[in-house]
């Protein structure tokens, strides 16, 4: 099942876009990830992940109004598509399935 190819970082970005819902543009996504996960994100990594997922149609985007604050440049807002949502669900299901399959013993041993 190669249908939903979603990398770890891509998944985080996709989820964050979902979290921000209507306010998901570059800087906001970057800040959100940095705050929630406590890790540094470069604009390059973020943008390339966004464009890549847009190409894979996990995301769609619209252009906002240009604002003074950004040197007259418009924001680009992202939203998860239905396909993107499916991908997220799929990835969650796979994880859950894996979680379920771990025998209790394996986890217990780890703590002993």
């Amino acid at each position, binding site marked *: 099942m190669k249908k939903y190819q979603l990398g770890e970082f891509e998944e985080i970005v996709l989820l964050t876009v979902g979290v921000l819902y209507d306010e998901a543009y*570059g800087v906001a996504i970057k800040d959100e990830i940095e705050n929630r996960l406590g890790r540094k994100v470069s604009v390059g990594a973020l943008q390339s992940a966004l464009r890549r997922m847009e190409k894979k149609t996990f995301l769609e985007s619209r252009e906002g109004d240009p604002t003074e604050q950004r040197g007259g440049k418009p924001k680009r807002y992202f939203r998860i598509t239905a396909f993107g949502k499916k991908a997220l669900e799929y990835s969650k299901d796979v994880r859950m399935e894996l979680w379920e399959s771990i025998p209790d013993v394996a986890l217990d041993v780890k703590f002993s």
Partner: protein
Amino acid sequence: MIKNIADRLLRWYCHPDFYPDISGDLEEIFLRNKERGVSASNWRHLIQVILLFRPSLVKDLGQYSLIKDTGMLKNYFKISMRNLWRHKSYTAINVIGLAVGLAAFLLINQYVHYERSYDSFHKDAGQLYRLTTDMIVDGQLKTRDAMSFNPSGKVITDEFPEVESYALTYNNGQLSLRKGESLIRESYVKMVDEHFINLFGFDVIAGDPSTMLKEPYSIVLTRKRAQFYFGDENPIGKTLKVYSGFDREFEVTGVIEDVPINTHYKFDLLVSISSIQQRLDDEGWNAFNYYTYLRLAPGTDTEELEKRLIPVKNTHMGEENRLFFNLQPIQDIHLYSDMTYEPEATGSARSVRFLEIISIFILVIAWVNYVNLSTAKAVDRAKEIGLRKVIGARKKQIRGQFLFESFLINLMGAILALLIAELAVPFFNQLVGDNILTSLYNNTSFLSRLGLFLLVGTLVSGFYPAIFLSNFGITTVLKGKFSTSKRGVILRKSLVVAQFSASLILIGGTFIVSRQVDFMRSADLGMNTDKVLGFRNPRFVGDDYEAQRAEMRSFQNALLANPVIQQVATTNSLPGGASNDIGSTSGQSRIIGVTEDIEATTYIHQVDDQYFDLLEVKFVAGRNFNKNLKSDSAAVIVNEAFMKRYEIQISDDLLNENLQFGSDPENSKYHIIGIIKDANRGSLKNSVEPTCYFYDPVLSRSIVKLSGANIKESIDHIEDSWSEFFPNSVLESSFIDERFDRLYADDKKFGAVFGAFSGFALLVAVLGLFGLSSFMATQRTKEVGVRKVLGASIPHIVMLFYREFVTLILISLVIGLPIIFFSMNGWLSNYAYRIDFPWIIVVLALGVIVVSAFLTVGYQVWRVAVLNPAKTLKYE
């Protein structure tokens, strides 16, 4: 500032669709950072921009990028292959031409590379120098000698900190050794001190490099020789019996790796120089017969160091001594040294450069062929190009297509070139006289060059045709009004002229080189060396000279006992050797009471009373030595060159005058008894050296005149007598004629290489002409048909085509002639005995060009001219 650069960089590479919002994001982050007072926000910004450089965000490589258009590439490939296949002969001419040119070029390149690589394999070769001796008289550089005084290396190393170490060596030449029952003659033996191995950094297999050559009578073998003498046994500690003046056991103290052949100081065996310590001590600062090598600290200014060496020389040899120290980088020795007493004949930087130029000529001719043929054939492709353009092809794409086609042809040429070169390797090695190449398939330097020139060739040969073809106007082409432009014709003609000129120069040069070599081989030497055999006498041990003389005399008598031997003479140097085979004095000399002192090198040659007679050397005045005259031990015979130096008339009056060498009155006792006609002892490259001949009845070498009745029997007789008298020495004899021939081996080699490659050049040029004329003839088929209908004969038509080529050949003659004249006159001026510039040769070279051009053109035209006009004209 930094931010500006970053912004501009982003704009340059970022995909235009993404640029506005990404740059907006960056701007926002930047402003926020600045507000919060984060340090170095500018740099952070730049780093972010750099991190943004990712394939998914970068601009497209261009909408019409070839790389993305694999579909079109496939199409180009198909069309190219169809085209090449359809015009098989044209393709073959191109490919063969390129292959021959490339193969010749790369082979020469290997040779040039090899010649320039001499002595570069040593450890830190750039720091190694040879200490040589210059004679400077009144500020003028006179003789440069490659040798130096034996204590000088040590003295200099002790005194100057930038001289890190030294090695003292003596070129022993040949030694006879015993291996089991047989005597072995080793030809490459050097005597060296204990610093030698470390100074050059030779790889040691066994033994301690810093001590193995310290003790007297130690011997160090190269791997091959160790294998030869001891097989798989460990040679260390074993002994070898050495003859040739030593007659004792030498202990093997080390084995080193075989030394590459590209060094000026070749050896198979090393003997510790302390074995001749007595001689070193005796000679001291009185004789310079040794090669001294120095390792200087990196970055040493050698000129400045040479100046500081002058006081050292003054201390040890006195202020008035005219011999100065000189430092010579060892990597320059092989190609640039022109000193006397070199350990081996040096190469010539000039002929290496010459060959390099030839090779470039050949390659360029091959490329020119391609340019010529493909622009000439443009008419065939015009419709295709027009149609492509109509459909929407851009110039860039058409250029790409033709570059691709040129790549295909060049690729086929390169593959064929590899095959040709591989097949040519044995001939090539034979030609240059060294085994410098083995298989090419795993020769990385050759293969990488092949690859490089494949690409360069593609660009050079493909570029012009590509531009030319892509510039066709659609309408003219498709309307059918297209014909080759005038500019293209002129270009093509000038390229043909360039090819002819190059071929003319090369062929003329070849003829001149071979003429000069023939001239030297057949020139009158001033003596008759026919059926004269020469060999080295055995070296004797001990001081009992009387007994040695007696033994040599009885050996001579034994030789003469058989009538096949006409005459025997003895000398200290065989004719047909290097000028430095004998000693020389560089001090002043004069004829007492007749001339002033002059300062110049005089060669000292010792001979017996039979020598001049045997070689039929003529006397201009006076007489030969007479062994019955006691007074002849103080007699001297000089040659004309010696007398000419004093600028005096040669006459009988000069006889019985005394010669004075230096200022020591002891050296004034020699009186002149005869003056001989100049006779060349060595190569005709040099003029006859001013020489004084002194009498000695028994010397180190013998020459024997054979009656010529039965050569084999004569040689057998000499060998039999030799082994009877000297069972512990090896006889190595050779005819004097052969020795002289060997002197010209290098020139012959040069001529042969020159000849072979100018042949290639002509071949490639003729191939090009073949293709070009075939094409021209086909283009004018209709015209020929009409002419025939109107009554022109075949010869008439052929002449019509010839007229065009005659002008081209004449122009190339005008261009080539001055080049041949100046370059070959320069080459000839290296020789003391040279031919005049042979104009007739140039005519001959021109003849070769004209004949080959006319044959190719004539054949092509004739093919078209014999066609029946009814056939050629009917299709319209």
